């Protein structure tokens, strides 16, 4: 019998790794994936809570998170393609139009 807290800690670890990845990685696609990882971690937490409280709404939230993630992936990747087409690079440190 596994305590719920284990699941929560696992999700925390995954989330933290996601954050670290976000900071460490340079490839914009990878960074995007790190974001997805964080989302997954959150989902895990949701499901764990849902189990602990037998509250189904947790699952609903996960569902919505996944849907939004899908939409986000579609748009995000389209953007990435455009950026690559314009800059010829996927390195975020070379993609700093925001500055000027």
């Amino acid at each position, binding site marked *: 019998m596994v305590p719920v807290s284990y699941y929560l800690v696992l999700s925390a670890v995954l989330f933290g790794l996601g*954050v670290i990845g*976000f*900071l460490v990685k*340079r490839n*914009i696609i990878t*960074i995007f994936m790190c974001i997805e990882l964080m989302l997954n971690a959150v989902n895990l937490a949701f499901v764990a809570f849902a189990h602990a409280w037998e509250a189904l709404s947790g699952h609903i939230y996960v569902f919505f998170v996944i849907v939004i993630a899908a939409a986000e992936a579609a748009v995000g990747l389209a953007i990435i393609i455009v950026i690559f087409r314009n800059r010829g690079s996927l390195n*975020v*440190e070379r*993609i*700093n*139009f*925001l*500055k*000027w």
Partner: protein
Amino acid sequence: MLDLVWLLPLVPLLPLAGAALLGLRGRQWSRGEVNLVGVGSAGLSFGAAIAAAVTFFQLPLTEIPWKFDYFTWLEAGRFQVQASFYLDQLSLLMMLVVTGVGFLIHVYSIGYMHHEGGYYRFFAYLNLFMFFMLLLVLAGNYVLLFVGWEGVGLCSYLLIGFYFLRESASNAGKKAFIVNRIGDFGFTLALLLIFWTFGSLEYTNVFAGASVMPAEPGDWSQAGVLTAISLLLFTGAIGKSAQLPLYVWLPDAMEGPTPVSALIHAATMVAAGVYMVARSNILFAHAPFALATVAVIGCLTAYFPATIALVQNDIKRVLAYSTVSQLGYMFLGLGAGAFAAGIFHLMTHAFFKALLFLGAGSVIHAMNGQQDIRKMGGLWPKIRATAATFWIAALAIAGAPLFSGFFSKDEILWQTFTSPTLRIGKLLWLLGLIAATMTAFYMFRLVFLTFHGEGRYTPETAKHIHESPRTMTRPLIVLALLSVVGGWVGIPAALGERVHIPNYLEHFLEPVFAGANQLRPAAMPHAHSEELGFMGLTTLLALAGFAVAYSFYIRNPELANQLAHTFRALYQVLVNKYYVDEIYHAVIVRPMHWLSDRVFWQAFDVGIVDGAVNGAAARAQEMGAWLRRWQSGNTRSYGTWVALGALAALTYFLFGQP
């Protein structure tokens, strides 16, 4: 059924519509269409005014003064201004004068402006002026009146500078505007003070509030708020009605087309001050000191410009100065507490001064733009209609018996003499009398130099001289008629008793000034014979002025020059109008110029304002430069900041909470 509610607005709105049409579309129109719209609107407005008058007379006395709030124009807390019209005998009279004379002058302009450029523009301005003037007259509260007040100021500016290519014209326009500002400043303060005192600017409330207040002592040291209000209002009047010391703009205003001079700077606008003071009679009646001030200023204004007029050679300038002095008479009358008399003179003056100007215009027209009377003379046979009407006007203003000016001016002088409120009434009366004499003199000097004696004009002008077209002469005749009979509505009791004609005007205006008259202590009893004596005296003096003029300019013209030679200094002073303009320039304009240039511009504006603005910009720039180091554009850095924030939030949840 005629109803003032919709009839009265037509009076001002018709000219406005005309102005709008002309201003927007007039450029493309032919002269005929412009006449149709411009003159037509004025005529319709005159008709509407008459209709309104008819309906007004049918109103039961209880409904007079008639007032109607059309809608709430401004509202800010307690401050509330209605778009309201206010019609009583006074405003009715003014409305009729404005529309009537205005209409005549419109007609006259058709002929006079025929050769001028900007034809449609002229009529657009003229109509606009009509609108504002009527708004001023019919306004139901001081704010609306102020709107009209400023509006006519604007129109006068536009019309003085009508020939804006002439620098002198545009300067004159600016001068008029700026000088008026000084008066308007006082007026604005007066409005604030009124609101502060009565909590409203509607006539009805103000007058009601004022009438229950006790009259203030005549001694200025103990004068109260009403005196302040009255004086400030009068400041406005000084500016608008060209009283001492702000009269200087009016003579220059003659740069505008002559019909303008006639309508705005003789008949109507300059009388706005008189109207306003008369409208506020209840306030003034409660402030004897203010009233006395009005009288004194008026008297001085009647006197000095007259002296200047003696030696002027520009036909319009002479008339301008005479206008100033006549306005002075009106204020003298008001100041003496004889508001009716003042208004009476306003009316008659409107007639004959308009006539004089139009006549002058006709002469200038004939002389092909020549305005210097020294280059005229002997025009009588060539332009009879003009000459005849001009004669009538001259007689009227000089106060020849049975002419309109005679009655009104005498009324004023007599009231001044017998005024119970004025301590120095006698002195003022004396000055007024002298002024009247001078008036007679310079008017006939003008007449003689213009129409009689041998012609001093150049041959080529001679060929050009001709009588003006009908559109110009007809209004002259009508006005001439009015200048003769206009006075008969106000025949003084002394004379009236004998011919059994009551003083219609006084009775007519009675209700308007009732409140003021109650406050006035009864005049010390004077036998009518006494008054008749005075009349005789004035008549004699007028006659004397006439005689002197005749001897100077018909009998032996050298005499005038010799006189001017002997009293060279005085002559120079007069010719240069007491150097008033120069003094003003030295005392006010130059210091102001220096102040604006050195202090306000170079020190304040450049130093402080610009400094502040640029400084703010610079600070912002520095801050931006500083912040920009955070805005690295590097996603990873941003991520770091976000993570930092998350950490902080989490830390708060962990340790921050008890």
